[in-house]
């Protein structure tokens, strides 16, 4: 006799398996796994290398024991994979809605909660697979680096399980949530998640701030990334190895240093039961939060763009004022193309975008120099979808077969698309350019070059990756660095650095476009 829960379990498993098959049968999935393997290997540099990826300060790290390798992987995955993983796994619900598979599923006894939990579990399964690849590479790295060849599987897996799993459970929840909310399904969500990730990461500070004396009773819940737990227990060991570091000196990511690294012994991580309960609570909260989204599933599924090829986006506003402005272009063929590209871009802009651009324009004109710099970055950031998706328009709208059978279409479209992207990138910072042209011509030149870099970079990375997400993520990360006067977008704060960088990037982007665009158009 078949019990009701068995049926539900079978449906859950069927959705999960179908989702995993759909993902694992794409080349991108296996490329990502290979890249994870390479990146994991790079996390364990040899003893004579002048960088480290996880440690304290710039040059203090554990010897490559199973426990330390596991800790490195746990911290890297709980922080970095919780960011990048979101962009890897999201989109499965949107795919079901857009391809109308949802309409087939909704006519079955499947429950809404079961469906969402299966999607969440599918995200987790992908994360688990990635972590397994990482653990295998980590084990090999431990053997090859030969600092401590005593292999302890439990110590290797424990940090990954304790630190990364809850963190990724939260990311999987956000991937489900952002797929459900129509306005977060594309670029808007990709940008917003970066700030969510920052917020989640920053929340760690709140647990650490009280200081070591209060750790024992404030860190059991820890933060979603488990940073407070790791910092608490690592600091107890590392403070014996070197007195110069503080708990908050923990660094995750690349740290360059000169001279030799300082190593400490880390062969066992004692995790208290209450700590495990705290970590399990994050997983449970994620599951509950996903379950709580079930009532909005039907509403979310109704807000779909329809089947692939049914149009790239909403029709948007008519913007009749554009017609007379572009009329003079429409007297020659390339002008018609340019005018149509401009209309396509601007008509689909939402009201908030126009308001944001006006606000950022005023800030560029009236703000102090720091505000001016931030406003220029903001103007590019709110337009990120234009740069990231411009080259993907035919794919998104399903017009490739109409467009690319025309003689010379490849060249004509590339020229007009570059033109429109450049003009938008420059106009977005137009007020700042005007102002700087009179007060600081070098900064104006750097800003102009950076605008070209943003436009060409979006097109080039879109062509190379055939996906808007890498550029969206990159621009968001660079914007974050830029507002802190770092990175290639800080053209106003560091104009000479920006000019030097763009001198390298612009030819590279141009070369990518010229080389890959024709191949990209043939691949449709």
């Amino acid at each position, binding site marked *: 006799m078949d019990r009701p829960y068995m049926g539900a379990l079978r449906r859950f498993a069927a959705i999960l398996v179908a989702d995993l098959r759909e993902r694992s049968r794409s080349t991108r999935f296996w490329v990502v796994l290979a890249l994870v393997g390479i990146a994991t290997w790079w996390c364990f540099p040899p003893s004579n290398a002048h960088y480290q990826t996880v440690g304290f300060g710039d040059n203090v790290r554990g010897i490559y024991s199973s426990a330390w390798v596991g800790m490195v992987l746990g911290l890297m995955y709980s922080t970095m994979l919780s960011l990048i993983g979101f962009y890897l796994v999201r989109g499965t619900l949107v795919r079901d809605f857009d391809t109308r598979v949802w309409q087939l599923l909704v006519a079955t006894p499947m429950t809404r909660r079961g469906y969402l939990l299966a999607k969440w579990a599918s995200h987790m399964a992908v994360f688990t697979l990635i972590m397994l690849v990482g653990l295998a590479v980590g084990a090999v790295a431990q053997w090859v680096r030969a600092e401590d060849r005593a292999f302890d599987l439990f110590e290797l897996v424990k940090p990954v399980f304790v630190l990364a799993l809850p963190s990724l459970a939260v990311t999987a929840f956000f991937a489900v949530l952002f797929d459900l909310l129509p306005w977060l399904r594309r670029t808007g969500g990709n940008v917003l998640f970066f700030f969510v990730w920052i917020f989640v990461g920053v929340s760690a500070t709140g647990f650490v701030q009280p200081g070591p004396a209060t750790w024992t009773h404030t860190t059991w819940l820890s933060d979603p990334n488990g940073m407070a737990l790791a910092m608490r227990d690592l600091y107890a060991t590392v403070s014996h190895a070197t007195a110069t570091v503080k708990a908050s000196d923990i660094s995750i990511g690349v740290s360059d240093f000169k001279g030799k690294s300082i190593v400490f012994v880390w062969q066992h991580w004692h995790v208290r039961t209450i700590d495990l309960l705290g970590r399990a609570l994050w997983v449970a909260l994620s599951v509950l939060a996903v379950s709580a989204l079930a009532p909005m599933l039907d509403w979310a599924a109704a807000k779909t763009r329809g089947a692939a*090829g*049914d*149009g*790239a*986006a*909403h*029709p*948007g506003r*008519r913007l009749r004022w554009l017609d007379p402005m572009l009329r003079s272009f*429409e*007297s*020659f*063929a*390339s*002008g*018609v*193309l340019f005018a*149509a590209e401009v*209309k*396509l871009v601007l*008509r*689909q802009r939402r009201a908030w975008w126009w308001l944001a651009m006006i606000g950022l324009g005023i800030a560029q004109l009236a703000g102090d120099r720091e505000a001016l710099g931030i406003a220029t970055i903001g103007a590019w950031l709110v337009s990120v979808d234009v740069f990231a998706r411009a080259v993907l328009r035919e794919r998104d*709208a*399903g*017009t490739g*077969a*109409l*467009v*690319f*059978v*025309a*003689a*010379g*279409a490849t060249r*004509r*479209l590339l020229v007009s698309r570059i033109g429109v992207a450049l003009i938008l990138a420059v106009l977005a910072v137009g007020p700042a350019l005007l102002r700087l042209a009179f007060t600081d011509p070098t900064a104006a030149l750097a800003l102009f070059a950076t605008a070209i870099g943003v436009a060409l970079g979006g097109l080039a990375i879109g062509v190379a990756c055939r996906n808007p997400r890498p550029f969206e993520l990159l621009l968001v990360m660079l914007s974050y660095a830029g507002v802190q006067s770092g990175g290639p977008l800080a053209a106003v704060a560091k104009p000479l650095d920006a000019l030097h960088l763009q001198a390298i990037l612009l030819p590279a982007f141009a070369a990518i476009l010229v080389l890959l665009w024709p191949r990209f158009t*043939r691949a*449709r």
Partner: protein
Amino acid sequence: MACELTVESVHYRYPNGHEAVSGIDLRMGPGILGLLGPNGAGKSTLMRILATLSKPSSGRVLWNGEDIARKPDALRVELGYLPQDFGVYQALSAREFLAYLAAVKGLPSTLAKTRIDDCLGLVGLADAGDRRLGDFSGGMRQRVGIAQALLNDPKLLIVDEPTVGLDPEERLRFRHLITDLAGERLVILSTHIVSDVEASATALAVMAKGRLLFNGAPEQLVSQADGHAWDWLVPESRVAEARTQFTISGSLRRPDGVRLRIVATKPPSADAQACAPDLEDAYLWLLAREGAG
């Protein structure tokens, strides 16, 4: 006006090893070629090769003597293509969308304006040209697709499953349009709907499982089925059984039973009567005979 398309031993193999087109040879001149075949026959793959969207794995396609894989623009300037699935830019009006595609095709601006008006008129959208495509029905979008294929007054017009999504009236209008367009140009009409081809094709090619089963005049195909079409009145209770035993090209419910149209070597029953085959019978007879049905 030169208008000759030659397909020489074309094969197309997908990266997963599936051979969608297996050694097709065709020679086509002005007129309407109906390309028939069941779903999955390889028609759309062949259409994409002819439209320069895919390159054959081996073999070649010549347009007026030029290899289109080496010199795609030699064909593209004279090509109109309506794919099976296509999208539109919803933010643009039909006229703006056609102007955009005319510019992509390299039409001079003044000529483009005239052609856009002409093509919108041909597909019955003259009054809807300034409405945005986001507001169009599926059938109207399909007509926009047909209009864009005609923009450059193509010498080769390839239409892939063009009547899908059209209502009966639109379908009829399309058939008339295709008949009117033929003349000095070559129209390749790919479909699995025999009546679309029956109405207008001057030549016929039938594909199944990637192979070319027939190439010739429609009358030739019909004559092959002479003596193999049968009219058989059966009680309703025997229809299901008949379906499992014979290839049925049509059925008509009547008060005294169901009149079945059957294609078979021998009469399905002593009381079945021979009848003159039509194109549908001949097509099904060919597929059944070749084991491709």
